[in-house]
């Protein structure tokens, strides 16, 4: 509607310098510009000129269907001297699939999105080019039009719903993509299984272990493995290359009808994209023989959803038995199949292997019998592979949006862990005489998953503008798993703990409404129904016999074909079970004043139970959770500063909780439990900084005893900070960009079994980088202060033969946190501009 051209900075004109500037702005539903930010700087003078101009622009507001919506778009400016060949003075500005679909009209949901992409992005292709010789020229030639093409996004569920744009915070050092979860409040990650083992996730008072209580997806493809012997819902994110994560939605609680199996504590949805275009190669080397080679490419002109990336990583590890290597490749194509249809194809491959140190007894460490970073059992470690393919088509017909996605996954994992040493191998009468042979667990799972998901969303008018959506998720998991005990002396399996073939089918259907009966009131929610069916064959169903035959004793065999008194039976036991569950989910969002949203949410979630616990016709083969939350969110743009604050109180009850068992080396079913907590979070994004800060306090207790649930942290505080700016030197006319990142984690003393508390954790991660495209040099350090901290602490009995007599009573164990790890990374990126 109104377009004012940028004025060529006189001093730059005199000096004969040129520049490209890319701004990101929000076009409100009234067409006014706000939240303008410099995404790619051309220098202070050029930035200022572009900002002055764009603040005077007025747009015809974007519309989603018939509804005006606020959108965030990018506007490139190209300042060129008149002597050079210039593009048209007022070209069309088009933002194609580089911004998400606009948020719906209504109360604000998540925190404001920071500028997408790394801070050192090359200038975007110029398309809005003020004519320097006609700085006051009118916009009569062509209107500026933003075409927003994106994928339909889920609607906010209030204060529990975090739509985290990684953006500039990507400069904060993170070892793997799962650490991005820490951008959401209350999440703690630990790992005693080594690099390659899924991280243990603590979220809002849940010990979600390896993902069992958090539904995780990447590009819409489920990550949780239904039936993995290590833990039902095991979710390993090492296949995700952190650089290609564009956004992350963390919903802390089962409040969205889209959430399915495992969304007990919440869900995390990773979206993939690569902001920087061109072909890049990144080589990193650092402490402990760590090396990483990353190749990535994004065709210029294509959306950020079209990219390829591959990495090879290797480390000797920071202590005994901690080496790891992995390779991962992800390719994604996002394109259009006509004017109203888009498609996305995602391919992924991953393979990794590693060793792990496991746990150390505190008394052995204190007595000098073992070092802080040492190990008792060098047999610990693992291997994993994952290959997946996903295809998705989304189309629009008027107000109706349709999406369908199909996916297939094949994966394997082998995990070897020893929590107890030599404790769990008692002499049975029928066995040959033996000493304790060792408790090393060797657990393998091979899984095939196929599935589909989709939805249809439409808008309708009835005393206001509303939306309705129906959708489904269907997945079928076939998992073949076996768990051995390994003899320490020779590495031979001496016992079969589990040998299970499981087939789990999960079909969920949901309906979701988003009603806006009043301008200040939004009601979102619906109902979800899931049918979970199990077909399990326990191939080692009989392991002990109460009255063994003396004439035909079972001997040392693990899987027996005997019943009491010698009666024959097959060692297998099939079991089938199934049950459905219907759960309401509701969120109320109230906007009493501008920028402020009060919200309340209620919902229920389920976790399918471990197939090994399925018995014939088990009536409720899942654990159920009910959660409620009230909160407030305040989001405002003040000049170039985007500020978002939120706070929430929450309560969650689970009827069958998971409790870590060191003897099983995994979580096992326990009783019911309740969590009560409160969180605060803030994010502030300016022209040259981005700060995310959150703190969560929670109390998690067992319902029957009132005792605190062990291992769950009461208090988690996390800060992510990034700073970036161009330096005042531009050798060859190309600016040097500098960026720095800082990540701080504080975890209060965690409750441990037997009334104990763990140590506090306080770590600082930092990075600094300089870029003069096409080159970039970065230095990062995790655990910058080199704190010697215990990442995980446990109280239980173990006997690692470290003392002369058997040690049979509970004592403190710990898994060591990594010391300072420094990485130097060199990057070369070319071809980003056409």
């Amino acid at each position, binding site marked *: 509607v109104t377009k004012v051209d940028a004025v060529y900075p006189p001093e730059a004109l005199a000096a004969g310098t040129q520049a490209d500037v890319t701004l990101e702005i929000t076009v409100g539903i009234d067409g006014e510009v706000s939240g303008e930010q410099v995404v790619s700087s051309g220098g202070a003078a050029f930035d200022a000129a572009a900002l002055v101009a764009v603040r005077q622009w007025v747009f015809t507001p974007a519309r989603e269907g018939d509804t005006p919506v606020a959108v965030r778009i990018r506007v490139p400016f190209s300042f060129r001297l008149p002597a050079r060949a210039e593009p048209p003075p007022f070209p069309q500005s088009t933002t194609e699939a580089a911004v998400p679909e606009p948020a719906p009209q209504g109360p604000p949901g998540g925190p404001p999105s920071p500028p997408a992409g790394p801070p050192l992005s090359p200038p975007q292709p110029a398309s809005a080019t003020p004519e320097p010789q006609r700085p006051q020229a009118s916009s009569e030639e062509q209107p500026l039009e933003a075409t927003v093409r994106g994928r339909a996004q889920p609607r906010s569920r209030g204060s529990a719903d975090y739509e985290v744009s990684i953006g500039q915070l990507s400069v904060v050092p993170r070892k793997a993509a799962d650490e991005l979860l820490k951008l959401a409040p209350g999440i703690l990650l630990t790992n005693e299984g080594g690099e390659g083992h899924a991280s243990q996730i603590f979220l809002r008072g849940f010990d979600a272990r390896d993902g069992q209580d958090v539904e995780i997806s990447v590009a819409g493809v489920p990550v949780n493995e239904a039936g993995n012997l290590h833990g039902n819902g095991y979710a390993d994110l090492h296949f995700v290359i952190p650089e290609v994560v564009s956004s992350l939605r963390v919903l802390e609680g089962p409040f969205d009808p889209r959430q399915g199996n495992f969304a007990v504590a919440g869900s995390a949805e990773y979206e993939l994209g690569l902001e920087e275009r061109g072909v890049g190669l990144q080589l990193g080397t650092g402490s402990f023989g760590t090396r990483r080679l990353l190749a990535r490419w994004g065709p210029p002109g294509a959306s950020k959803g079209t990219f390829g990336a591959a990495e090879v990583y290797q480390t000797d590890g920071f202590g005994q038995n901690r080496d790891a290597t992995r390779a991962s490749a992800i390719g994604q194509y996002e394109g259009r199949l006509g004017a109203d249809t888009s498609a996305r194809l995602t391919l992924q491959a991953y393979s990794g292997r590693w060793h792990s140190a496991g746990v150390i007894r505190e008394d052995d460490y204190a007595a000098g019998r073992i070092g802080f970073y040492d190990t008792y059992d060098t047999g610990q470690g693992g291997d994993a592979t994952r290959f997946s393919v996903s295809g998705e088509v989304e189309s629009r017909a008027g107000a109706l949006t349709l999406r369908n996605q199909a996916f297939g996954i094949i994966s394997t994992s082998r995990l070897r862990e020893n929590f*107890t040493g030599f*404790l*769990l191998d*008692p*002499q*049975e*009468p*029928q*066995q*040959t*005489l*033996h*000493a*304790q042979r060792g408790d090393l667990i060797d657990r393998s799972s091979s899984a095939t998953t196929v599935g589909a998901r989709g939805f249809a969303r439409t808008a309708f008018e009835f005393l206001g503008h509303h939306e309705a959506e129906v959708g489904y998720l269907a997945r079928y998991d076939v998992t073949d798993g076996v768990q051995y005990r390994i003899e320490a002396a020779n590495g031979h399996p001496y016992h079969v703990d589990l040998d299970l073939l499981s087939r789990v089918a999960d079909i969920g259907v949901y309906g979701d409404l988003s009603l806006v009966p009043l301008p200040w009131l939004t009601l979102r929610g619906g109902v979800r129904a899931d049918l979970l069916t199990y077909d399990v064959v326990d191939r080692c169903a009989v392991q002990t016999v109460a009255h*063994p*035959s*003396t*004439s*035909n*004793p079972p001997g040392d065999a693990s899987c027996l074909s005997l019943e009491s008194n010698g009666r024959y039976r097959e060692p297998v036991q099939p079991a089938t079970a199934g049950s459905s569950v219907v759960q309401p989910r509701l969120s109320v969002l109230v906007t009493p004043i501008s920028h402020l949203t009060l919200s*309340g949410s209620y919902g229920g979630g389920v976790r399918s139970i471990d197939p090994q616990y399925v018995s014939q016709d088990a009536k409720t083969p899942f654990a159920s959770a009910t959660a*409620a939350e*009230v909160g407030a969110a305040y989001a405002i743009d003040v000049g170039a500063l985007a500020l978002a604050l939120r706070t929430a*109180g*929450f*309560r969650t009850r689970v009827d069958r909780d998971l409790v870590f068992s060191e*003897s099983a080396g995994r979580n096992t079913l326990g009783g019911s439990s309740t969590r*009560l*907590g*409160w969180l605060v979070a803030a994010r502030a994004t300016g022209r040259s900084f981005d700060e995310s800060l959150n703190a969560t*306090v*929670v*109390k998690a*207790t067992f319902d029957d*005893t009132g*005792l*605190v*649930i*062990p291992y769950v942290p*009461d*208090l988690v505080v996390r800060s992510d900070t990034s700073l970036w700016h161009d330096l005042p030197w531009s050798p060859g006319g190309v600016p040097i960009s500098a960026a720095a990142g800082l990540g701080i984690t504080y975890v*209060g*003393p965690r*409750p*441990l*079994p*037997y*009334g*104990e508390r763990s140590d506090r954790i306080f770590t600082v991660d930092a990075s600094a980088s300089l870029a003069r495209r096409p080159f970039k040099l970065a230095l990062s350090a995790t655990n910058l202060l080199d704190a010697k901290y215990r990442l995980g602490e446990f*109280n239980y*009995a173990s006997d690692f033969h470290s*003392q*002369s*007599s*058997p*040690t*049979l*009573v*509970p*004592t403190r164990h710990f898994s060591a946190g990594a010391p300072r790890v420094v990485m130097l990374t060199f990057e070369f990126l070319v071809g980003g501009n056409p």
Partner: protein
Amino acid sequence: MSRLFLALPFLLAAGCGSTGSGLVTFHAAAAGPADAVAGQPLVFAGGKQNAYQVTLTRATLHLGALYLNRSVPSSGSQAQACVLPGIYSGQVTVPLTVDVLSPEPQPFPADGEGTADELKTGEVWLFGSDPFATDDLTVIVDVAGTAVQGSTALPFVGQITIGQNRQVAPSNPALPGTNPLCKQRIVTPVTIDLTLAQGGTLLLRIDARKWFQNVDFAQIPADPAVPGQLKFLDQTVGPADIAFYSGIRGTSPYAFTWQPP
């Protein structure tokens, strides 16, 4: 929702909850019977049918470890494995050779550890270096004294080990693991009823008189090295040797007491 708001202030106490019980360390000691006199022989009427007046001039016991557990003693416990993971809540894992003629508590070189749970069973482990070793030449019991019956004095000595000399062959070849050697080294179940607490003291009193309760001293074989002296065979063969070894492995000579801090 209202419950949620009302509960928020209490979250300030989130860091105050407990998971229950507690890890504790405690002092541990062993001693002879309380009525013994330090530096004096232990004189008692004993032996089979209390037919002997026994003067015990030397009596030591080598303790490999002590374990306390939460399980209730039962007659069937003998059929269980040596170690039942998950039941133990107290342990003293440093060895101690006790002069059981002295009533004075003789402390273990290091503290014991455990949890503040109610304990029901005590176990006295008698071994040298490894309770699961296939053989062990450590002298567990060393005794010397004189048994008098009427006008007959029977000086005796004995040194008991628990190694291959105590291996019991399985009665049923189909159950070869019935009698692991480690079971010979564990005296259990000693009934107790105590709860450990930080800084307290666990005292094991050993009444050597009960070792000889069923011993017919006259049946002790002669000591080939010392004429006129009898010597228990370090094997489970003769009636006196069997009775003595059974006395050592019985639970009645052993009593745990707990002294709170």
